């Protein structure tokens, strides 16, 4: 931890700074991942659920299953 890398900047201090950078990168990756991979699926599922609810609302509850 006390190894001096550049002048007075020790390994411990550098690791502390690297932590901030890593957090920033992680947040950026997370936001990108959610926007590209997860959000489209969520939007589709939401639309599906809305459709199902509307269909259920359209058919009167007495005749919901089958026409026999």
């Amino acid at each position, binding site marked *: 931890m006390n190894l001096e890398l550049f*002048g*007075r*900047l020790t390994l411990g201090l550098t690791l502390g700074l690297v932590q*901030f950078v890593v957090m920033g990168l992680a*947040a950026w990756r*997370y936001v990108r991942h959610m926007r590209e991979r997860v959000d489209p699926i*969520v939007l589709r599922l*939401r639309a599906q*659920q809305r459709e199902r609810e509307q269909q259920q609302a359209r058919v009167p509850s007495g005749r919901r299953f089958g026409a026999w």
Partner: protein
Amino acid sequence: MVIHSAAIADEFSLRLTFVLFVSVVVVTLFTALLTAPQRDEISEFYLGNRDMTPLRNGLAMCGAYLSAATLLGSTGRVALNGYDGLMYLGGTVVAWMMVLLVIAEPLRNSGKYTLGDTLALRLPHGQRQVRLALSLCTLAVCLLYLVAQLVGSIALLTQFIGDPSGATRTMCVVVIGSMVVVYAAIGGMPGATFLQVVKAVMLVAGVAVTAVMVLHHFSWNIDDLLSSAADNSALGGRFLEPGLQYGGTTTNKLDFFSLQLAIVLGLAALPHVMMRLLAPRTTRVARGSVVWAMGLVGFVCLMAGVLGLGATAIVGRESIAEVDPRGDATVLLLSHKLGGAVLEALLSSLAFITLLAVAAGLTLAAAASLAHDLYGEVIRKGKAKQTEELGVARLAAVVIGVMGMMLALLSWGSSTATLAFLAFAIAASAILPTIVYSLFWRGFTARGALLSLYGGLLCSVLLVVFSPIISSQPSSVYPDADFAWFPLQNPGIVSIPAGFLLGWLGSLAGGRTEPTTPDDTFEEFEVRALVGTDQR
């Protein structure tokens, strides 16, 4: 417990601080009155404007989170303890990462007004007892944190007029406390939001300007800053090495770990931060605002590190410790040296406004929990009208404010940072297990929730009572008594695992006897938490 610090500000700086503080308070108070909820709707009072942009909500989140303990306490720790102080600042960003990755989105999707609503959706059986337990825990955390802010206002006043007399102390707490009550009770969430946004902008700007001045003083040479800090600390190289505050014994090291655990895990369970998470209407805005808040908080923490090091380099460690052994005066001393009375007045009025904004958010969160969970759902069993609940919420804000003021006057000598970190530890051990289990564990039952809420609260409070904070040390509340068998200052390392364990055991034990939650309740909850079916 005596505060040894003497007055460090001159007459001009004191007047300027007063003028600045009063003008910001007047502007924000009028805005709070103008934007106050007009239509007696609880959603407006609890959540405010739900169509805010990610930047504005993130600013408000940052304003709700960064307290005077960060601005004054952390910089002081950096200035006095060097490397060990800097390590405090790193934990904060990790805490926001936790919120972003784990809690924020499912909580927003499944929540309504308070955390109690999420739990009621997840655990429909016995939701009344769970709400009761949850509002007790929320009240405990909020009150403790509120007391920390009010105690901080006394400590700040001490920097100006020296040791305050009893009457001055009471006046300071009563004035600040009543402002907080007005913001929370009349302004509701819109008022608190405006105050928090203003404060966050001022804080980021003020800290940035001062840090730029420090860096300019060393002609933008970080190495120069570090070596002058090490030289002026009278400790040489040891200042930049671990172990100044938390070195030596294992107890010390464990204490540091315990504190970091509370900082990292506590944030996700702080009621006033959680309220901000529930405010946005869409998941995307909630995510964006957490990212903004994280960036802003990270920036302020980095700059606080620069300020602390700069204070040691420019003012000198010994003269800082001479004025205030806890280091709370560091920023003010530094600004006096760098920018004279004007900068000092700017930063000290900033500190007062910081106190005010955090305290207003806390009072509001506690009032919402009391009115919505305790009154609306437990006492009136969901039959209360909106106007009625709103009246109770305003009344609760007043009651909480008064309780906070009285407790602050009783414990005025304790350290702001200690009280604040205790609130974090209690939040992490009592409230966090319930949130995590209810969002992610199918087998969680109401009994587990009750056990982890009450157990975590009790465990952390008892450990604090038997810790060196209360007895056995010159700096504790009862220095003459000695019943401190728990050696650590911070209970987190024991009480957080205890809270999780109790929740797990309670759910397992009750699983066979009580009617198990039907599977579709969890499935419905999970769909809602992941998809967010309430949004278009």
